[in-house]
């Protein structure tokens, strides 16, 4: 059974919890509309990656967040499809179980621990930004690797 967690609670379990104003650069999602999510604000949540699901329709990051009282909350956050994420600079093996991450999400309106990823920051300072709207890119600079030249 799904464990319910209010957005308010999620803020408190996040170590550097804060709310940020979104700047309107969230990419378009092709699979579903955004109205299930609060696109007017973001949450920053710290956790440990348990799974990185690189697949259609959208990639998912699963990560566990430990609350102040020791409970574990299972979060799931989505990006766009792999084809979009490659163009935004993400790779299939960017996240691994055990990675310590700080995930900025647009949370679900229903208060469940799910959201749309704005960015992921790793413990070593590396950042994956999901708002790099390169929707004009074809990924040629990636796809052409190894191609012969005329």
């Amino acid at each position, binding site marked *: 059974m*799904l464990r319910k967690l209010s957005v308010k609670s999620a803020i408190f379990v996040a170590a550097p919890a804060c709310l940020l104003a979104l700047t309107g650069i969230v990419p*378009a999602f092709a699979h579903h*509309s955004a109205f299930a999510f609060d696109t007017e604000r973001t949450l920053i949540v710290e956790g440990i990656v348990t799974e990185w*699901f690189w697949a259609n329709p959208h990639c998912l990051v699963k990560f566990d967040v430990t609350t102040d009282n020791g409970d574990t909350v299972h979060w799931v956050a989505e990006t766009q499809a*792999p084809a979009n994420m490659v163009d935004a600079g993400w790779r299939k093996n960017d996240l691994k179980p055990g990675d310590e991450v700080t995930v900025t999400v647009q949370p679900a309106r229903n208060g*469940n621990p799910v959201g749309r990823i704005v960015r992921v920051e790793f413990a070593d300072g590396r950042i994956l930004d999901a708002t790099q709207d390169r*929707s004009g*890119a074809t990924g*040629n600079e990636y796809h052409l690797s190894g*191609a012969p030249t005329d």
Partner: protein
Amino acid sequence: MVKRFPLSATASMALIAAFAGFTVASVTHAQNGQQPSAGAAESPTPGPAPRRDLSGTWVPVGGTRVGIQAGGVQAMPNDGRPEHALPYTPYGLEVYESHKALEGVDAVLPAEHNDPRNKCEPLGFPRMNHYNIRVTQIFQNPYKIAVLYQYDNRWRTIWVDGRQLPEMVDGGVLAGGTYKASKWYGYSVGEWIDDSTLVVRTVGMMPEDRVWLDSTGRPISDEATVEEVFRRVDSEHMEWTETIDDPKLYTEPWVAMKILFSLADPHTDIIEMYCSPVEMEYYYESFGNAASDVETNGN
């Protein structure tokens, strides 16, 4: 082999200006200076259109966002604006209202949809033109033209061998007097009306209880005739237009798409975008249901 490069910013903007009827997204994209391919060399000035040749690897000039069409068909997004309202017949409206889409003004929560796409059913034609039409390959010979779509590695054939468009009959078509059953991608016949313009008509698609027109739940039926016009603008560009004529669902024909494409580098290796039923189910168990407040064991 001539290596083709995407347009420079200047050329892109000039072309988009020339096609002012295209999407706002295209214009915004160009104004942001984002290019189809980082690191590409300056493109030469496009030359004249080749004679009767659509072959190549094509990408929307306005970028991926133009082809995704998440908010409905590109020329008539389902955004609630009066100018984008479709001329439904009473039955057409009834079918539309029975569709629970994840996009558009009448979108439902992720767990409440009934979009056949979410079971990885074939999108069929013409929805394939309105769902993630990204990098599209076209091959041709004197007899037929093959359109290879990126999404789900699907393809369709357009006959250009002089045959007649099949006659629609109940449950399929009569092609040369022979009955053939309805197909997901229908029966397409093309005719060059001049050296740079191919007009394609398609009939014999699947009925409205199997396919949708777009991701916002607009319907399409097995009585539709879809007319596409592929027009080579110059050596680097092609305009792809689509008109829906479906008297079962719409009171009059209407234009669903008008997108300008440019040739990509012929070496472009295209990313797979398969619809995997296993992955789709896992996505909804893990995420979509939770976002919709549906109890699940997925977490």
